[in-house]
């Protein structure tokens, strides 16, 4: 082999993208072997999944809808990680954002666009506070953010469940809140498609009708904008430079005149606000209400995985979120078609993360040790 191809090979093997792609491939291969061991034909399963994702426009639309909150919680985790903080609290921040958006969407009386802005704004504020709290605990008292955010997750869950029991907010006997007002919806023709005229018109346009059977909404566009915003803040602004400097080496950043404590709080404020926006878009565009949570739904926890697979970058989170959404939506289809357990899909996702995380884990440990030695 020539020297050029050797260096290309090295480049390929060492690049972050290739590690990710290889991990995904390994995930599919090992997932297939596990399915084989469980007595199912993996090729048939993958075919069912692929068909379940691409064979109809509606399915693609559902994948995008499933991906939207995951992309944004992924951005939240990624943002905090760049400042060296591990935001396990995206779940709780998501819950607080969803709660605030549901309350604002139901109680406030505002014209259309303004209502959406108010609901999203309130959700971002409340969730930013929830995230910032953990950042402030860390900056002021040195409380590890992993511990405080896990605690805040449960606090958020119980606050949300309690709020649903309030008589004017929760619809008695359904375990859900009243639906938000139409002026706060971000659905695309959500009202019209349920009217008799809407159904009559759409019956003549089967392609359009198929797409509109899913709760098509503007959330994904907002997610893309947020991804761009995160990339811009981190890479093109002074604030982003400071936050990243703290993430790389807090001592050096401090010596360079950057306030580490302030950076921690700001980073968690922004991370919390992002996760809150994810909850808000889900409520305004898909569910239109919140429900009593028997368990954590996992939007925030999945965000950790999305961030890892997406290499903690804005654009990376978009692709990782789409992959995750596709696996979650398409993967569940092997259950009714083949009678195969959906756990196989979770195992596959786990394997992908395992392989993605391994080289990074090693890199992280090395960076941590280096930092320890320096201090």
């Amino acid at each position: 082999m020539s020297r050029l191809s050797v260096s290309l090979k090295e480049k390929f093997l060492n690049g972050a993208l290739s590690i990710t792609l290889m991990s995904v491939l390994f995930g599919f291969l090992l997932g297939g072997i596990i399915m084989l061991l469980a007595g199912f034909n993996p090729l048939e399963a993958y075919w069912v999944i692929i068909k379940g994702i691409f064979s109809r426009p509606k399915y693609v639309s559902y994948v995008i809808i499933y991906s939207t909150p995951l992309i944004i919680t992924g951005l939240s985790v990624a943002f905090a990680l760049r400042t060296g903080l591990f935001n396990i609290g995206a779940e709780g921040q998501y819950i607080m954002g969803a709660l605030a958006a549901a309350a604002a969407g139901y109680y406030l009386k505002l014209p259309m666009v303004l209502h959406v802005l108010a609901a999203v704004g309130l959700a971002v504020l409340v969730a930013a506070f929830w995230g910032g709290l953990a950042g402030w605990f860390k900056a002021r008292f040195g409380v590890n953010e992993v511990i405080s955010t896990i605690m805040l997750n449960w606090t958020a869950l119980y606050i949300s469940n309690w709020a649903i029991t309030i008589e004017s907010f929760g619809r008695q006997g359904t375990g859900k809140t009243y639906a938000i007002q139409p002026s706060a919806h971000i659905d695309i023709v959500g009202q019209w498609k349920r009217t008799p005229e809407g159904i009559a018109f759409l019956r003549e346009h089967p392609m359009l009708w198929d797409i509109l059977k899913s709760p098509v909404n503007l959330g994904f566009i907002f997610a893309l904008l947020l991804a761009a915003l995160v990339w811009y803040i981190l890479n093109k602004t002074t604030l982003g430079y400071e936050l990243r400097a703290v993430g790389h080496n807090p001592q050096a950043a401090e010596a360079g005149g950057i306030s580490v404590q302030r950076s921690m709080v700001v980073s968690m404020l922004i991370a919390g606000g992002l996760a809150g926006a994810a909850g808000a878009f889900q409520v305004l565009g898909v569910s239109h209400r919140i429900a009593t949570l028997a368990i954590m739904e996992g939007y925030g926890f999945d965000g950790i995985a999305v961030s890892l697979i997406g290499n903690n970058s804005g654009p990376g989170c978009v692709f990782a979120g789409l992959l995750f959404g596709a696996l979650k939506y398409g993967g569940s289809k092997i259950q009714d078609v083949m009678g195969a357990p959906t756990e196989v899909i979770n195992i596959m996702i786990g394997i992908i993360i395992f392989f993605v995380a391994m080289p990074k884990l090693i890199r992280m440990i090395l960076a941590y040790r280096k930092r320890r030695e320096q201090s």
Partner: protein
Amino acid sequence: MKKIRVALSAVLTLFFITGLLVVGQAATMKIAMVTDVGGVNDQSFNQSAWEGLKRAEKDFGIKVAYKESKQDADYAPNMETLTDAGYDLIWGIGFLMGDAIKETAEINPDQKYAIIDFSYGDETPQNVACAVFQEEEPSFLVGYIAGKMTKSNKVGFVGGIKFPLIEKFEYGFMAGVKLANPDAEVLRQYAESFTDAAKGKAITNNMYQQGADIVFHASGGVGDGVIEAAKEKGKWAIGVDKDQNFLAPDNVLTSAMKRVDNAIYDIGKRLIAGEFAGGETVVYNLKNDGVGIAPTSDKHVPAKILIEVDDLVAKIKAGEIVVPATKEAFDKF
């Protein structure tokens, strides 16, 4: 590197080839169900529903399938997926799916749906059948047994989350206790969960400590803890939904059975006969074997009491006793 590329393209080609194949539609009738977040092995009503479908599969030679929901947002897409798969009837198991079924049914007017534990009343779409239960009736019967068998004159009730549905169990049970033993006291507590078994155990232990000797639960997975506590303390527990005696054969006195399986089977049978109950709400009670007490009750309950229970069943069927299902009705009972 080259090998990987070859393998990758081979896999991709396979996907495309298989993707081009077309599957034929099966001619037999197909019924599917969407579980709530409890999953299909919840020892409770999702599992009971699936048993009903399996029985229908065996008896009528139909094809059945289920799809589990992991989160609230899965209900609607799961309904859509099954709608596309061409099932003749799609079940939603549990009242939490009320909104999802109605919304899906409105945009798919040609597809038949059915829901357990929820009624839209007059607003029921023509393509939706509702199945509800009179849970207060079996609760009344097990309450009567508890009232007759308590030695401490104290019994307990553990509820899941305080929904009107669970209150039907609560007040039916209290009415039964009151009829059998007016002096007996009923300790009541809600666990604010349907999954937290540890909490169920703590509440039940607390009730036993306060002197109760029989505890009835209507709390899904929380009940595992209730029965566990009975087993450890050597006291009685009363199961719910299914015959839960198998969980602790020496400590589960009886169970208030809610035959979700019978409802699923029955509505499936009507569909096959061409008499789908679209737009209707079918009520399942003692009269049509939709509810009852567990067949294993004769293991621990004296025959004399069971004869009295049979007498009560006859009276309820004849309408001589109307079992209260709400606080207001109980206060007048």
